């Protein structure tokens, strides 16, 4: 099929898509401007059932908080995946660091004595 057929990946999910000569839009700035600025981004957290924490499930765009909740219901809980939803504007979240393995977490790395396995207890002492 010659050069033309090159660089298609099957893993476009619903079928092969080209990976060569396709623009990405990276580095062109987020908002294209124009009369309609993009709606803010919200992060969505869902409590799967009573007794569990809310867990981050994804994100979506909405004009305001109420719309974010309604969209979150439609997008993330179509099959009883949740009993409660939190939506938070992404720009209101403060994150620990730009890197997931930052020295921020180093202080807990060398304190083995915080774990129960650090302590040796004779095997015949019950209920420990």
């Amino acid at each position, binding site marked *: 099929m010659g050069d033309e057929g090159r660089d298609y*990946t099957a893993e476009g999910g*619903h*079928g092969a898509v080209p990976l060569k000569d396709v623009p990405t839009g990276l580095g062109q700035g987020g908002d294209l401007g124009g009369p309609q600025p993009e709606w803010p981004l919200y992060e969505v957290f869902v409590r799967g059932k009573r007794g569990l924490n809310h867990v981050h499930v*994804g994100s979506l765009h909405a004009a*305001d908080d109420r719309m974010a909740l309604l969209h979150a219901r439609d997008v993330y809980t179509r099959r009883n995946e949740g009993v409660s939803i939190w939506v938070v504007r992404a720009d209101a979240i403060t*994150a*620990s*660091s730009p890197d*997931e393995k930052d020295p*921020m977490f180093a202080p807990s790395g060398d304190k083995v004595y915080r774990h129960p396995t650090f302590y040796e207890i004779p095997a015949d002492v019950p209920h420990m």
Partner: protein
Amino acid sequence: MTAIDSGVTSAPDEAALAHDFQETISRNDRIEPRDWMPEGYRKTLVRQVAQHAHSEIIGMQPEGNWIGRAPSLRRKAILLAKVQDEAGHGLYLYSACETLGVSRQQLTEMLISGKQKYSSIFNYPTLSFADVGTIGWLVDGAAICNQVPLCRTSYGPYGRSMIRICKEESFHQRQGYELLMTMMRGTDEQRAMVQESVDRFWWPALMMFGPPDNDSPNTAQSMEWGIKRNTNDELRQKFVDMSMPQAEALGVTFPDPELRWNAERGHYDFGQPDWDEFMQVVKGNGPCNAQRIEHRRRAHEDGAWVRAAATAYAARGPLVEEAAQRPSRDRGAA
């Protein structure tokens, strides 16, 4: 999202960052949005995830075509739910793509201007109601083969979207197969309709896995990065092997004279799709390309006033009655 600089790090050099990245991949660990990643990795992912998202969104159209003409309320409800799922899949994937640094606006623009593509399968028309069943069975079936390995892809947000999507795909495939089974129990005319539909979709379904491996040199790099987990030919073989017993149980045949069991290989042998047709369809010359893009563009443009109204409503703040219903602590020191 804002990040607090812990103040402990000095900026590490690129070689060290690349080393950390490679280590994470080798450990089979996931890359997360704010990690350093090579530009090539980022670009490959944007192309793949964006076009995957576009495929889900355009993929609503062929089946959406039959919602108003579904033969029963049951079939209509099922089809509506299925098409709504595909919209959801598109949204999960757009979200994942945005974590890489492109905006939703840009992605929408690149779809409706034709700069980015979507799966060629959705450029074929749905001519009979049996096509709804065949798409569920074969097209979503092929999508499952593609998507299951992607749950372990190296980019965290992409993998997490795929896990959600895969849970929903099995409903898609089963409802399609059940629809065809029901038609096969009907009249001769209905059975002929099923066979005709399967004949039309078999080759395009095989094309969904992309050109043969020796024509896909990028595969090696994508596999090294853990973005891709199986080659095009491996996935295609898996799909054929899965589909044959299903076709037998249904009582239909596939339009391929070379299709037969190979006991030595332990797999079915099969013929090659028409790759020239594939290239034509991807380039925009398929039966429905123009119509699909035009429909998406119209939906986007017709929706502009709704988006503008919602923005204006949000800017104006809550209505007076709503504010009055709030607990008094919201209204100051009272």
